[in-house]
């Protein structure tokens, strides 16, 4: 499974529905994720990719779309 597929799986699990937005579209503006689901997603990403996301990186912009999340995970790998 690719990184992007794993990220989509996490997002779909948290939102409880199939992802209906493109990789560059905002997960917040499209109401796929709310603030608390974002918090849960950060924890799920850390677990799935065995990374530690520092507090300094905890800004919504880094996790606003599938593409941004993937880029961030790449940068941490």
């Amino acid at each position, binding site marked *: 499974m690719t990184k992007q597929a794993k990220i989509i799986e996490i997002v779909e699990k948290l939102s409880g529905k199939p992802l209906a937005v493109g990789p560059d579209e905002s997960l917040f503006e499209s109401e796929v994720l709310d*603030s*608390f689901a974002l*918090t849960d997603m*950060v924890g799920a990403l850390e677990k799935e990719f065995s990374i530690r996301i520092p*507090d*300094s990186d905890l800004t*919504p912009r880094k996790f606003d779309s599938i593409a941004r999340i993937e880029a961030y995970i790449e940068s941490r790998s």
Partner: protein
Amino acid sequence: MAYLRAFGAYLPSRVVDNREIAAATGTDAEYILRASGIEQRRFAAPDESVRSLGIHAARNCLENAGLAARDIGLLLVSSSSAEHRFPGPASAIGAGLGVQGVPAIDLPIASAGSLFGMALAAHLSPVYGNVLVVASEVMSRVVKCHPAHRDTAVLFGDGAGACLVSSATGFAEIRDSLLASDGDFAAALRLDLDAPLYMDGRTIILQAARKIPRVIVELLERNRVKPWAVDAFLVHQANLNLITRVAQALAVPEDRFFRNIQRYGNTSSASLLIAAAEWSQQHPSPAAGPLIFAAFGAGLHWGALLATPQSFGPPL
């Protein structure tokens, strides 16, 4: 040593329910409840102020402590909604209590202000004796009830709380505290001059959901106390969903966290002490186990404080 002797609170009488605030901000009452857990909040009357609310809470606290205002050695006042850039409300609250001459220090650090005040009071009480910590907020005047600002306008309410920290006696000893600040996120939650309160809610929730459990765990671990052994968690009432997340992160039952945000909304720095005052009223017998106080807010500032009943054992 320093002890928690009493709490006090004051809430303005005007109740503003979600239907009223939803109509004023062009949002949905059910959404407010779902997103925050808030059902209603209190708004100060036009003739009320940070000063007047604070004086009411201070008097209530002194009465609960069985003390007179003249017994205070130091006054610490937290407010993020003070009417003037300076002087802050501390000296005016002191004058209102009739303790002119007693040092009165302002802590304008928003939501974590009362927690910082309690921690400072614990360190200062061996010198000043009885330290009265007051947190007073009129948040309804720093938010804007307008659709463009509805995300913040629906969250906040007015109120005041107080805590008497004594060097001599109390129902629980303040054992330890842990305070922290991080200015990298100062812009995420702020009240600029001549502008309504601004909050980047997603950033604040992200930061708070991680920092609050972590600071509590660090404080408990260094005092060799397990989270499940804590009798009550008294925390800043910012959002019911956030409190739920903190309880889950600590793996303790949610009902250990005292919650009154449903009735008062987020009263910034006052919320911790209003919650403590209500918890204290509902639990007139001394606490059986450790108490944790915790707060997080603009700055960013956050922290936790551990207090234990006298019966809990010798200092750790």
